[in-house]
């Protein structure tokens, strides 16, 4: 089980439980840690409108 929050002697050392990052909100191939502590790999590819337009030209 992944760990998303670490508390030592009452002190929060790390906490990602409130993060909202998910794979579909992260650019393609980028790495992050989700709110559940699991690694997330981005699936979103951001490209320009001009590029999209070129795909259909």
């Amino acid at each position, binding site marked *: 089980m992944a*760990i*998303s*929050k*670490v508390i030592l002697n009452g002190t929060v*050392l*790390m906490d*990602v439980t*409130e*993060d*909202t*990052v*998910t794979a*579909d*909100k*992260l*650019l*393609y191939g*980028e*790495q*992050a*840690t989700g709110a559940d*502590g699991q690694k997330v790999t*981005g*699936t*979103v*590819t*951001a*490209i*320009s*409108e*001009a590029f*999209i337009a070129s795909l259909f030209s």
Partner: protein
Amino acid sequence: MANNPYKNKVIYNGTTLLDLTGDTVAPDKLLLGYTAHDASGAPIVGTASGGSGGSAITIVDTPDTHGGTIRTITAVSLEDDTVEASVMLSGYTAHDSQGQAVTGTISTKTSSDLTASGATVTVPAGYYASQASKAVASGSVTAPSSISGTSATVSTGTNTLTLTKSVSVTPNVTTAGYISSGTAGNASVSLTASVTTQAAQTIYPSSSDQSIASGRYLTGAQTIKAVTTSNLTAANIKSGVTVQVGDSSDPDRVLSVTGTYSGGSSKNVQMYLGTDSRTANSYGATAVTLTVAKTGIYNVSWTAWRSSSQGTMGTNLHRNSTSGTNQQTWTSTYGQQIELTNQSYTAGDVLTLYATSGSNSRTINVANLIIEEQ
């Protein structure tokens, strides 16, 4: 490590509990508004909007059931969006034309948010999902028992009611049909009305204009008498002379006649029909005298007689003075009619008979001096 205020890796008893050091996430790698922690452990907020300007283009790959990948491309243009916080309800979010996340600020209101002060209801700005209302207290006013002047006002709160006095007037109409006076129905109001009247009258034409005064009620006929013109005929008026009855500016004036009469010339006849006596023994004027009215050639006559047979007596007719021309010397012992012809007189000449009774004191009578123009 000392310069990093964040924790990015925790190892407990040799076991790595949480490790962000390998993460590559950064604000520009994370979609706009989403949160994460980067490799340093610092919290970050995504700024990636994809595409240029206010547009978002996303490609999402998902595996299909055949081991392949389904790539979904979504392009959304935000450039024409006009949304901003002030036009959105509170709690709702959207992205503006630049792709920036915005959260609405319009608060939701209900009837409970309405307030009343007197007759004024205050409605705060906001969104009302359903009809809102606020009851205000009703008011009442009591009309005054009397009104001084023409009107009165009564007020309650911010409301004002104006009462206007109305007075009923009963006119006194005479049998002739006009109002002679009026009385008011309200004893506190005094009204007086009167009309100047003009009784029947007859107006006779004169050489000057006449008028009936204005502002009068005529209670009788106003009779303007007619002008009698029965003898104003052309035949009765000297030729060339125009006689006009009525004002010249009146095209309908009564009459305008130009005479045509050219009758014969007239003769001037004057006479002194009295008698005067003179008793003297010298020559002197009598009271028998005439003033000639018209210049012309005249025949002249008078009568003289003596009171008794006492010598020669005579009469002379003088013109203008005793030193004037002696028109006739007559001597006789008896009374007789004396006549002169072709005497030329000028208007204004004074003719006087003179008498003489000789050397003795005697009486001579003269009378009936007549001059007749030839």
